[in-house]
């Protein structure tokens, strides 16, 4: 299950708020200072939905992700499941 981790700081809060608002995501946290946004299939977030300027958007993935990148650009963060072995539960 692809997951995006988000540091629990004010500048990245819009990413978590958007995931909650848009729906279809499982949002866990804050735990140990991080949120984890995950979903079955593909995880896709659009920058326009977050209202983040480019400088913050491109830095917002700093806590990392579990999955395979499809498109990470100024418009969207789009990852799919890891191509190799099945995800751990």
């Amino acid at each position, binding site marked *: 299950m692809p997951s995006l*981790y988000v*540091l629990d*700081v004010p*500048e990245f809060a819009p990413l978590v708020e958007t995931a909650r608002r848009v729906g279809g995501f499982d949002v866990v946290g804050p735990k140990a200072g991080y949120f*984890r946004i995950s979903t079955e299939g593909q995880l896709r977030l659009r920058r326009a939905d977050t209202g983040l300027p480019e400088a913050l958007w491109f830095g917002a993935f700093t806590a990392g992700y579990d999955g395979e990148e499809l498109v990470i650009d100024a418009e969207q963060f789009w990852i799919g499941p890891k191509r190799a072995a099945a995800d751990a539960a």
Partner: protein
Amino acid sequence: MPAPKITPLKPRLHGVDHTAHPTWKLKETIEFYRDIMGLPLVHAITAKGWGREKEQHADFLHIFFDSGNGSNIAFFYYIGTSQPEALKIPKGYMAMANHTAWAVETMDDLIAWKERLRAFGVTVSDEIRHETIESIYFRDPNFYPIEITLPLRKLDRLDETDAALTVKAAVELEAAGKLDTIESMWKRKAELVQQRMNAA
């Protein structure tokens, strides 16, 4: 009660004493830092060149301005020399990575600095919002990149621990010759973050 363990004092650093740069534009540099940036001129050293027999160290001036928080910013002016090609500052983002950023306390001050610099004919960017700061960017007469920045929040314990995870992931990958993309680093970082979440 057992005797306390005596451990040697570690040497400590106490902040930046000064930063220093060469200049081949004496009047412009002094006018920029003293009159436009408003930094007090606090010290000047002048000396006959000595030592460095092979290079023939030039006679020089060493000019210090107060850069705040107990530090100075200093400029060396090497009399009778011209700027080597290797010390000319190129355009481009990599050269801009070498800069000093000056703090302001309010957004009004950040905007006021932008307007002041423009009034003096300095090319200044508009404000750019980053993770924890908002900044304007320009160059001094030597083409040294300068930033004036407004901190938006203080860094805290979480920033520190997150930085430690970033560094751990990045250094691990670099040592293995696998730090080829930011995505590879982000994937390793996520493993470390998940471990922390599991342990919480």
